[in-house]
C-alpha cells in the first residue's frame, strides 16, 4: 500500500488558476503524462458510478450534462432519489434502456498531472472479448469488488485477463464500503482472500483501496469514515503510478508503416518506435532481410531529433541504399527480434463462429499482413478456475494456447517483452471481421507443441533409489547442483566449465561437463540451431543434468540458451534450490576477435541466420547468480569465482 505522506496534494481540481491566470494554468497543463487504465466490474459493482464519480469529482462534467442526468435519474435512474452518476457514462440508447453496458467505452478526464483515458468494459463472462480489447492498450487495471460479495469468479477472471494482456499494475477497489458500515475486518478479509489467489499471477504491483463510489469515500478525498485506512486515495494512486518504466528502451524496434519518397533525394522509412531508442549513427538490422545499415537521420516535421523513443512517430533515413518496404522491422543490431513462420501464442477468440483449425486467416501484426492458420489448440484455459483443459477449437470468448503456421515469416518479440511486436489479430478472409487476437510467446515448434510442455504418455513412475541424498552427500562431500553457463558463442562458457571441473576434482569433488558441442555429437544430433531446436537441446540437457544431480554429481552445463523463458524452464526442470545461472559475457567486438571458425563473419554476411547476438536475439539474463566479464577476467580468475560461489551457496564445503 502506498503512503500519501509525500506532501503531494491528492488531486488538482480545475484550479483557481483558470480564472486568475490562464497562461499559468495552460503551462501547468502542458506537461502531463497519459495514463490509460481499465475498469473491470459489472454495473452491480458500481463501476459506472465509480467512473461517474471520477469525472464528477475531477470537475469534468459540464452543468448541462449534470442537469440532463438529474432529469434522467428521475425516470431511469437506479439510485433512489439521488443523482445517478452512472448515467453519465452509459452511452448508446439501447443499452441505456437495457441497463447494462455492452462494449468498450472510452472516457477522458485530466488533472494537472495526468490525462487519463479510461477503457470502460463490462464484467460479464460473455464479454471477455471486450475486456481483452480494453486491456490491450492499458497500463493499469482497476478491479472492482463489491464489499457485500467479496471475491467472486469474475474477480479472478478480470485479474487473469489483465495480466494476460500484460498489465502489471492492479488496483483492487473494494467498493460499497458504506454498505458494510465501513468496517475494517470486511476489507481485510477480502484483501486476504484476493492475495491468496493473486500470488499465482505475475503482477508487479498490487494496491487495495476501500471506497464508496456512491458517496465518494477515498475516491478523490480521503474518507473520514475509514480512519483505519492510511493508504492513498484512488485518484492519488492514478496520479502517481509510474507509467514510463514499463516501456522497453533497450531494444530498438520500428515497424515500417510507409516509405516516404517525395523526390529522388529523399527516401524515409515512416513508423512508430515501439521499443528502444533510435539515434543517428546507430547500427541497425532490417528484418526479415537481415541487411544492416546505419541510421543517418531521425526526421520529424519539427526538425531532426537526436533521440527517438516509444511511442514517437518518426521517419528514419539510412546511410546505405538497402531495400526496405512496408512491414519490415528496423531493429537495433545485436538485439534482434525473432523471425519465424511458426508461432506459439495465446489466442482470445472473438467471433460467434468458432476457430477453424487449418483455415487460412489474415493475420495483422505490426505493419504487416500475412496469411496463416492455426494447426492445433494445445489447451484451453478456463477463465474462472484458470485450469488448463484439452480442446480442439475455441468458441466465442474462449482463451487457449495455439500453434500457428504462417505463409511467410513474421518478425516479432515475445509479448512479455514487447506488446506491439508480440501481438497480432486474426481477420476472417470473407467477412473481414476481426475474429481473434493473440499474444505470442515464442517461435513455434512442431504442431504437437514443444516437448517442454508435453505430458509423458502412459502411467509412468520413476523407481525410487535405495541410496538417499544424505548418503550421497556424506560419500562425495558435496551437495549436487547444476550450473548453467549461458552467453553468446565464444564468450568462454565451456572453457570455464572445464576449468571448474578440474579445480573441483583436485579438491576431491566430482563434477561433469555438458556443452553444446558434446550434446550435438550424440544426444542432440537430430537438432539444428533454430530457436526451437536450441530450446529442445536445452531441455534434453536439463533432463540429463537432473539425472546426474540425482546421482550426487555436480553438473556444469555450457549452452548459449538465448531465451530467458528456456532458462527458466531449465531451472524448473532441475529445481530452484539446486540451479545456479552464470552469465558469461564480453563485448561483441571481443567475441568476433576470438571467432576462429568464422561464425560471426558468416552471420554478418547474411549466410548464418541463427547466430544469437547478430542474426538472432539473445535475451540477457536478469537475475544471474554470477556475471563473468571474460574481456576483463582470465580463465583461472573466472573459475575461482565460480568455485567461490559454490562454496558460498553451500554446495561444496
Amino acid at each position, binding site marked *: 500500500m502506498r503512503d500519501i505522506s509525500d506532501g503531494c496534494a491528492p488531486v488538482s481540481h480545475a484550479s483557481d488558476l483558470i480564472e486568475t491566470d490562464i*497562461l499559468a494554468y495552460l503551462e501547468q497543463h502542458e*506537461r502531463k503524462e497519459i495514463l490509460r487504465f481499465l475498469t473491470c466490474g459489472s454495473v452491480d459493482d458500481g463501476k459506472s458510478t465509480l467512473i461517474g464519480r471520477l469525472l464528477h469529482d475531477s470537475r469534468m462534467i459540464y452543468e448541462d450534462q449534470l442537469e440532463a442526468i438529474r432529469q434522467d435519474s428521475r425516470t431511469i435512474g437506479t439510485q433512489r432519489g439521488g443523482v445517478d452518476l452512472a448515467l453519465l457514462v452509459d452511452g448508446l440508447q439501447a443499452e441505456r434502456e437495457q441497463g447494462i453496458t455492452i462494449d468498450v467505452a*472510452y472516457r477522458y478526464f485530466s488533472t494537472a498531472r495526468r490525462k487519463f483515458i479510461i477503457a470502460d468494459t463490462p464484467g460479464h463472462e460473455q464479454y471477455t472479448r471486450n475486456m481483452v480489447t480494453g486491456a490491450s492498450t492499458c497500463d493499469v487495471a482497476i478491479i472492482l469488488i463489491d464489499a457485500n460479495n467479496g471475491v467472486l469468479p469474475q474477480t479472478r477472471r478480470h485479474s487473469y485477463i489483465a495480466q494476460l494482456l500484460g498489465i502489471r499494475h492492479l488496483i483492487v477497489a473494494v467498493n460499497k464500503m458504506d454498505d458494510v458500515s465501513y468496517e475494517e475486518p470486511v476489507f481485510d478479509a477480502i484483501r486476504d482472500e484476493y492475495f491468496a489467489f493473486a500470488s499465482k499471477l505475475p503482477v508487479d504491483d498490487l494496491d487495495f483501496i476501500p471506497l464508496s463510489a456512491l458517496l465518494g469515500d477515498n475516491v478523490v478525498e480521503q474518507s473520514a469514515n475509514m480512519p483505519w485506512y492510511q493508504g492513498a486515495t484512488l485518484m492519488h494512486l492514478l496520479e502517481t503510478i509510474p507509467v514510463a518504466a514499463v516501456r522497453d528502451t533497450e531494444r530498438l524496434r520500428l515497424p515500417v508503416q510507409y516509405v516516404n519518397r517525395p523526390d529522388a533525394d529523399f527516401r524515409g522509412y515512416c513508423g*512508430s518506435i515501439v521499443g528502444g531508442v533510435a539515434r543517428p549513427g546507430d547500427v541497425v538490422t532490417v528484418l526479415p532481410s537481415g541487411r544492416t545499415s546505419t541510421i543517418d537521420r531521425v526526421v520529424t516535421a519539427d526538425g531532426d531529433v537526436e533521440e527517438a523513443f516509444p511511442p514517437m512517430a518518426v521517419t528514419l533515413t539510412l546511410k546505405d541504399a538497402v531495400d526496405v518496404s512496408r512491414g519490415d522491422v528496423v531493429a537495433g543490431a545485436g538485439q534482434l527480434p525473432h523471425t519465424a513462420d511458426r508461432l506459439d501464442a495465446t489466442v482470445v477468440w472473438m467471433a460467434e463462429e468458432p476457430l477453424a483449425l487449418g483455415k487460412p486467416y489474415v493475420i495483422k501484426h505490426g505493419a504487416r499482413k500475412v496469411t496463416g492458420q492455426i494447426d492445433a489448440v494445445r489447451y484451453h484455459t478456463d477463465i474462472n478456475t484458470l485450469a488448463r483443459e484439452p480442446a480442439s477449437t475455441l468458441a466465442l470468448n474462449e482463451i487457449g494456447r495455439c500453434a500457428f503456421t504462417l505463409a511467410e515469416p513474421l518478425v516479432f518479440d515475445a509479448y512479455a517483452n514487447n506488446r506491439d511486436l508480440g501481438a497480432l489479430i486474426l481477420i476472417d478472409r470473407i467477412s473481414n471481421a*476481426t475474429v481473434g487476437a493473440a499474444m505470442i510467446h515464442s517461435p513455434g515448434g512442431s504442431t504437437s507443441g514443444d516437448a517442454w510442455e508435453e505430458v509423458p504418455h502412459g502411467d509412468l513412475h520413476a523407481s525410487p533409489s535405495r541410496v538417499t541424498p544424505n548418503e550421497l552427500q556424506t560419500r562425495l562431500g558435496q551437495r549436487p547442483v547444476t550450473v548453467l553457463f549461458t552467453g553468446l558463442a565464444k564468450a568462454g562458457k565451456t572453457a570455464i566449465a572445464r576449468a571448474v571441473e578440474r579445480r573441483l576434482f583436485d579438491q576431491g569433488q566430482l563434477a561433469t561437463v555438458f556443452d553444446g558441442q558434446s550434446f550435438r555429437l550424440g544426444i542432440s544430433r537430430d537438432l539444428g540451431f533454430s530457436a526451437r531446436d536450441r530450446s529442445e537441446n536445452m531441455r534434453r540437457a536439463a533432463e540429463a543434468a537432473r539425472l546426474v544431480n540425482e546421482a550426487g554429481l555436480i553438473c556444469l552445463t555450457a549452452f548459449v540458451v538465448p531465451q530467458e523463458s528456456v532458462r527458466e524452464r531449465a531451472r524448473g526442470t532441475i529445481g530452484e534450490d539446486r540451479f545456479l545461472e552464470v552469465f558469461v559475457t564480453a563485448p561483441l567486438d571481443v567475441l568476433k576477435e576470438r571467432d576462429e571458425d568464422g561464425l560471426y563473419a558468416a552471420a554478418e554476411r547474411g549466410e548464418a541466420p541463427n547466430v544469437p547476438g547478430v542474426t538472432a536475439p539473445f535475451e540477457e539474463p536478469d537475475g544471474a547468480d554470477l556475471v563473468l566479464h571474460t574481456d576483463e577476467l582470465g580463465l583461472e580468475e573466472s573459475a575461482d569465482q565460480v568455485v567461490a560461489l559454490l562454496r558460498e551457496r553451500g554446495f561444496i564445503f
Partner: protein
Amino acid sequence: MRAPDQRPCLEGVLAAGYTLTHLKQLEAESIHIIREVVAEFERPVMLYSIGKDSSVLLHLAKKAFFPGPLPFPLLHVDTTWKFRAMIEFRDRIAREQDLDLIVHTNQQGVVDNVTPFTYGSKKYTDIMKTQALLAALDEHGFDAAFGGARRDEEKSRAKERVYSVRDGGHRWDPKNQRPELWRLYNGNINRGEEVRVFPLSNWTELDVWQYVYLEGIEIVPLYFAAERPVVERDGTLIMVDDERMELEAGEEPQLRSVRFRTLGCYPLSGAIESDASTLPEVIQEMLIARHSERQGRLIDYDATGSMEQKKREGYF
C-alpha cells in the same frame, strides 16, 4: 489566428526520462493512424469541415508525411450556407499550402432551393450534408475518409472505433463494429464499402485547443470574439452573415461581441456572447463555462440519441 508572441512552443519530452507529454503522445498516435490508412487503402480522403478539429487533423497529416506533400485530397461538402469567413479561410489555406481540395455541393438541392429556412434543420442537413457527402464519396470512389470527430464530444461517441466501417450504402451498424486491440487496425473491406477514420478519437476539446495554441495552428477568426451582427431566435444568437437571411417581423440585427464554439452553416450555428479574442481567453472561457461543446450546434436537439441516428444514416 496566430497566438500571441509569448506563446510557448510545444516541447515534447518530460523531464522524467523517456516520456512524452500527453499532447506529443496524442500527436504520435494520430500520425500513426494517418500513416496506416494511407498505406493500406487505395483512395483515402480527408473530410475537411474548416473547423478547428479539421485544422488540427490537417496539421497532423502534414506532419505524418513531412517532408513530402499530403498524399491524399481534401473534401469539403459545401452546403452554400457556410459562414463567408469559413469559405475565405478554406480557399486561402488550400492555395497557400498547395492542397488538393475537392468542393462538393448537392446541386439538385440548390436548384430545389433546399435551405435551412425552407426545410428545417433535420431535412436540410440530410439533403445538403449527408446526401451530398455520400454522393461525393461515391463519385470519387474513396474507400477511407478521415474525420475530426472525438470520443469526448458526446456520450454516444464513447464507443466509436478509430476505424468505423460503413457498408455499401454508407450505413453504420452499431452491432457490427470490429474490436480494436493495441494499435492493430483492421482495414480489410470489400469493394464498395468504406471506412471512416477518426485519428483524433482520444483527444478532448481541451487537448485540441491546447494543441492549436502550442503549435500555432491557424483557425477561422469566427472562433474569436468580435462585433458581429446577430439576431436572437428561440434563445439562440444567429449571425446575419449575408443578405439571404430573412428577418422575421420585429427582428433587427444588433452588433454584439460574439464568437462561435463550433462552426457549420451560419443559420444553424448559435453564437455565444464573449469578449475572448485570444486563444488563452477562449480556452479560459471554455473551462469556466459549464456548457458542453455541441450545445451551440442546433442539429443535436431533434431527439434523444439523434447523433446515433445520424451516424447510422451516414453523417458522422
